């Protein structure tokens, strides 16, 4: 049946929610080949119906073309959806992981996707710089702050961390800190800190 391979691509995405499976170059190529092959079939059908010019058979040739055409449409939809949804996921990752992706995620991307990601990061950065006089970091204060300072627990051995006022902090696993919220927010999102209430 046509469209099986395209469907397999989509199935792959649907199985891994909120993460990216490795870019499936083989399957993508297979789907585009199938599209090409269907196009050939349509061309064949057209040419044969032209030659024979028998109206009776022409009617049924139309149904062959319809089926092939539907197959193309379906495959196209799967391909586009596959890429679109991956990009969408990648965009979310920019907000959640920050501008640097973990290496094990990066290996799953295609070259084009990596390029898209860095372009998106650049655009975002220049947009954030352009707001107001000094720019605004849109990635912080995602939730309305209740207090300016919060207590956090360090979940990993992060090493030394410099605060904006220049003082240095040693972040050791399981140590607790009381810090300005703005300093912690990004580290919390990256899973270095845990917010304690």
């Amino acid at each position, binding site marked *: 049946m046509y469209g099986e391979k395209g469907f397999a691509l989509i199935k792959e995405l649907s199985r891994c929610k909120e993460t990216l499976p490795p870019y499936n170059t083989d399957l993508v190529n297979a789907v585009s080949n199938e599209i090409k092959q269907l196009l050939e079939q349509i061309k064949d059908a057209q040419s044969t119906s032209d030659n024979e010019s028998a109206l009776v058979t022409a009617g049924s040739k139309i149904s062959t073309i319809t089926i092939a055409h539907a197959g193309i449409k379906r495959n196209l939809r799967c391909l586009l959806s596959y890429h679109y949804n991956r990009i969408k996921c990648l965009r979310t990752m920019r907000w959640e992981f920050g501008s640097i992706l973990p290496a094990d995620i990066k290996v799953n991307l295609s070259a084009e996707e990596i390029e898209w990601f860095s372009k998106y990061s650049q655009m975002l950065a220049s947009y954030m710089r352009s707001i107001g006089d000094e720019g605004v970091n849109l990635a912080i204060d995602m939730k309305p702050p209740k207090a*300016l*300072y919060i*207590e956090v*627990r360090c979940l990993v051995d992060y090493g030394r961390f410099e605060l904006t006022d220049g*003082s*240095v*902090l*040693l972040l*050791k*696993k*399981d*140590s*607790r*800190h*009381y*810090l*300005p919220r703005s300093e912690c927010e990004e580290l919390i999102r990256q899973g270095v800190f845990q917010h304690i209430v």
Partner: protein
Amino acid sequence: MYVDDIKQDFYEFLSGKRIFLIIHYDIDSICACKILQSLLRYKHILYTLSVVRGIEDLKTAYRENCNDVKYFVLINCGGTVDIVEELEAEEDITFFILDSHRPTDLCNIYSNGQVRLLSTAEEDVAVPDFHDVFKEESDEEDDEEEVDDSDGETRAAKRRRLGEEEIVKRRERRLWEDNRNKLLFEYSQFTYYARASAIRIFDLAWKLNKDDKDLLWLAIIALTEQMLLGKIEDSQYTLEVGPLQSHATRLHNRTNDTDVLTSLKITFEKDLRLTLYRHWSVESSLKYSMFPAVKMKLWSLKGDKKLNELLADMGFPLIQSRQAFKSMDLQLRKEFHESLEKLSEKYGLQDIVYASFILQYGYRSKYCASDIVFALMAILESSPRDKKPEELFNLALDCLSRSKKEVLDGAIERAKVIAKTLFKTVQSALDMKQIINAGPFVYYIIQEGCLDWYMFSHQHILSLLSHFLLRAYVAMSRNRKASTLPLIVSAPKNIETGTCILLGIPPLGENSPKNFFGKAFEQAAERINCDATCDFFDTSYFEIHTKDRTRFFDALTALLS
């Protein structure tokens, strides 16, 4: 140096500075830390918090952070050692120490502002005078100069006079040194505990008008822990309970809206010396609690019968007394307190009632202060062994916040297991006659591979066991002098390195928690020249290699007899 005005010279002083909190791994410290945290938040004082188990941890924590932070606050650690010397601290670093361990090191007391003690001077008893212990170097120099200046005399006269002076001076010095050593020995002879740190910090909160019921409850837990672990005398407990009770009344009258909603209430009540009975069954609680177990000798067959007799006398059917206290008949539940108190004399259970506090919130949650102490102990010391102390410390902090009820309930379940294990260990120690009289003291060794031995490698539980053991021993022993003998308990500490932990407790008859084992352990270790590490802030705990243990006990026997 003592901080005179804790509000001005500690709290206000620290505002705007970044501080490093070093917390000892015990219940009092955790409570004190939690109160302090809430105070620091009001002023937005940035802090980093780290938990330590011994001097080594303290050194590591200091070393890793001394370049970044200049103010260190130490809770229940560091007071008994010369902290500046021990940590090789730079001049620009200031220590604030709140330590309930005693005696406080004299160098800390007479420090010139680098070490600031947050406890009050009255809590340190019989501190030797500065001039009796420290001789200022400038004095000596002056003396020498004086000698040099005296010109007008003849050489011989001078020499004679010098000789005389020298002799007099030497004699004075020797006397002074003798006196110094004597004073120092007297001062450091006993280790004991002063007022709980959490109470001190709560007082600060009160002075700042930032106290509330939650903070008071923490102070109460700290005090209860000191009492349950025999760290303080009963009279001291009674003394401390008074002010806390008035705080409870005062705070109760100062209700606000949220209190009505959650109906948070701390009440001062008479309670029973039974472990966790509100969360257990009456029979189990009676059986596994130290107090009734010792009084009725519950480890024996006879004791068992006596317990059943008591239950029958109280009019409690076995079925009822074996099911969870919460699900017992309402009538029986109400009567339990009273009927046990009434029968206490008949069964030798006088003093089973003591004054304590109860925390109540919502409709179902009702906890006695001792419940929380046992729960905390279970978290700190009987969690799965792969958990790191920092994790457990965090869990203990969670356990104290009211929104994490499931943590507390889980801990209470484990606390029951501890209580059972304690009882069974005592029972087998008595049955097998494993408590051995060494002359000046008795000792008990928990062998590796024995029932739940790993539980006893921790300080709190080992301490509970030792008190239970000693009481049971005295109750069972035919030796009339049993109550004058101190007890040493030893348990495996680290199997890989082959070390064991020792804990000595003073004799029952002395009725005082002052502990002389710290010095004794030290000297005994010196005598046999064994490689001992004393990493504990409470020096009545000691760690030696298991292979040295027999020799060590011999040395102790020689030393103490």
